[in-house]
């Protein structure tokens, strides 16, 4: 175990997988000479050279499509989106090519690629660079979607994503790059895709949250514990495939559920998780499922407005209190 930042854990995963498998290469904007806009690829150009750390012109659709082609013939590209908001420019390549090639070639060509980069609200990145993009991809059959919330998850899940034979959307967060945690040094340490993690055990209510919202939910749980409300906080970690068993199991235990998401709601992950809970555990519920989401408006630039738009600890606490009648 070593204590390291989330950013360093990602870097470690990339380095280890590149050392392990010569088919793995990185491609994206500013990832080489510049070491990445967020320094996730620090030092990798130096270690692996230009063939395996490819700085691209500014063309998300082009380099994503290129990675699809390279993956079809057996390479394992890891594409960096400088921010996941830029993936909108590559949406056709992701949705119509990466996700469908295996299907439309009758199983002849799979697309073992990872598309990674930060997404969701950060520090004053405004309307076009703060979006929680995971639902765009969650909707598409053929894509796996990962949102790693901790440094060990960042390493273990990214390694699994790179080894996976399907296209994997791997969305990090600007706000988490600097957080520290204990990360296993073992180069064979991986975390399987599709396993949720119970971050805090509790008995009164299940709170689903990931990324920045996970930490806010844990703070809320801590505060509510003092008031006698016992919250179980569950981090899905992988959205597709989703670990419904663990997530529903928790609700069947606590009989109440609150879903927190940083996004703007409306067909968001909150809607989806709430639907799963209703379909699978309706009669286990003692209260309607509550969703806590960001305001349904574009992200404002001003700091105080940004804070007001994003779900706060107080908003999470209020929702938990409502479902618990506490």
């Amino acid at each position, binding site marked *: 175990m070593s204590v390291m930042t989330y950013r360093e854990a990602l870097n470690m995963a990339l380095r280890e997988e590149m050392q392990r498998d010569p088919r793995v290469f990185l491609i994206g904007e500013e990832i080489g000479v510049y070491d990445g806009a967020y320094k996730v690829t620090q030092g990798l150009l130096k270690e692996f050279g230009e063939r395996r750390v490819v700085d691209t012109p500014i063309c998300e659709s082009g380099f994503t*499509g290129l*990675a699809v082609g*390279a993956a079809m013939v057996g390479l394992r590209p890891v594409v960096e989106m400088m921010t996941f908001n830029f993936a909108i420019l590559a949406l056709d390549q992701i949705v119509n090519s990466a996700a469908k090639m*295996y299907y439309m070639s009758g199983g*002849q060509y799979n697309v073992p690629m990872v598309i990674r980069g930060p997404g969701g609200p950060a520090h004053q990145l405004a309307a076009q660079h703060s979006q929680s993009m995971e639902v765009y991809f969650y909707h598409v059959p053929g894509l796996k979607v990962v949102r790693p919330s901790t440094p060990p998850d960042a390493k273990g899940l990214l390694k699994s994503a790179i080894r996976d034979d399907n296209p994997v959307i791997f969305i990090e967060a600007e706000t988490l790059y600097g957080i520290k945690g204990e990360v296993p040094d073992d180069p064979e340490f991986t975390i399987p895709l599709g396993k949720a993690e119970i971050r805090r055990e509790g008995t009164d209510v299940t709170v689903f949250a990931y990324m920045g919202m996970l930490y806010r939910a844990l703070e809320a749980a801590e505060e509510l514990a003092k008031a006698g409300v016992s919250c179980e906080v569950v981090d899905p970690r992988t959205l597709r495939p989703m670990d419904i068993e663990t997530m529903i199991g928790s609700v069947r235990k606590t009989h109440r559920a609150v879903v927190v998401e940083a996004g703007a709601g409306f067909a968001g992950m909150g809607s989806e998780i709430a639907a799963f809970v209703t379909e699978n555990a309706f*009669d286990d519920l003692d209260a309607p499922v509550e969703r806590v989401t960001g305001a349904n408006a574009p992200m404002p630039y001003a700091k105080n407005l940004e804070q007001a738009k994003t779900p706060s600890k107080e908003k999470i606490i209020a929702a938990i209190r409502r479902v618990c009648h506490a």
Partner: protein
Amino acid sequence: MALGYNRDKAAMPRTPLEPRFTIEYLSILDSDGNLDTTLEPQLSPGDLKRMYRAMLLGRRLDERMVRLQRQGRIGTFAPIKGQEASQIGSVFTLRPTDWMVPSFRETAAMLWRGWPIEKILLFFAGYLEGGQPGSDQHDLPITIPVATQLPHAVGLAYAAQYRGDDVVVMAYFGDGATSEGDFHEAMNFAGVWHVPIVFVCQNNQWAISVPLKKQTHSRTLAQKALAYGFPGIQVDGNDLLAVYAASREAVERARAGEGPTLIECVTYRLGVHTTADDPTKYRSDEEVKEWERKDPLTRFSAYLQKRNLLEEALEPQIDAEIAAAVKTFEAREAADPLTMFDHVFGEPPSHLLAQRAELAERLEKGGPRRSDEEQPPPSPPMRGQRKTSRWPS
């Protein structure tokens, strides 16, 4: 004085830079049967016969497929009529280990690459296996979204370069694709990385109803290559010999590590855009007749006739081959609905397995999914009495 200054007096006048370009146009066998013997490629009689046969097979299958579609026996497809020389002249220059990346109008090129007729029919009848290339075949499946296959093709070429493989990629697209961002992004990459790729643009003059002059203000499509730093050439796309000569040169360049080439084949879609299209709404009969005079097949058959290489009874032989394939295709049972769940993910997730099982049960019973004894009781239980949880305890 359009520039707003006096050139003679300027201390630093505007000076012309290097790229004062010209684009070459290549024609070897014109529509009147004139042959430039100095450019005539040295193809063996056997190769010439094989090429003609491939063009004719493409044409006859295309015509048959239009009829099959009109009779409701296959679905919508994009006919190739008129573009046979552009396809066969280019694809002929590939080795089996090279990669062929089609758009959606490359039936002749696909046949050449070994796609069985039956499989092409299966594809357009909606069978998923129709899109499956053979495991030893270096072809990508048909791509429908315009120009999206071009970044894939550059990816294949990058992979070849990455591994040091001696392969070349040939990517097909139409004039319509040259307006898409993916075309430009792919061309840009190919130029920067100098990958082994040949871009074959079949300029058939129409992007459905939009004529070339409304698609681009460029004099040629070939010249777009120059902006990306590699050669472009325009050829008479209905002249098999010219397409072949240009393609051979481009493939040799790519294989020698000299980078990409764009070949613009000037051709014409004699038929409909797809079987869902009615071109009489946007183009004149005169225009079509003018291009029928330039038909690549009649031109090449006249050339073979002169060289005494035209085989007798070729057409009935080809028609019999097509008829046999249609017969095998039509003997197929309807596609198995359960195949819709195959190949979504490498390993089927539980929700897909559940959906598959549900459909399988429904299909087996051929009626409502639940049998009588499984029907819910006539009055549903009240709140607190029922157990709706579907998750196993």
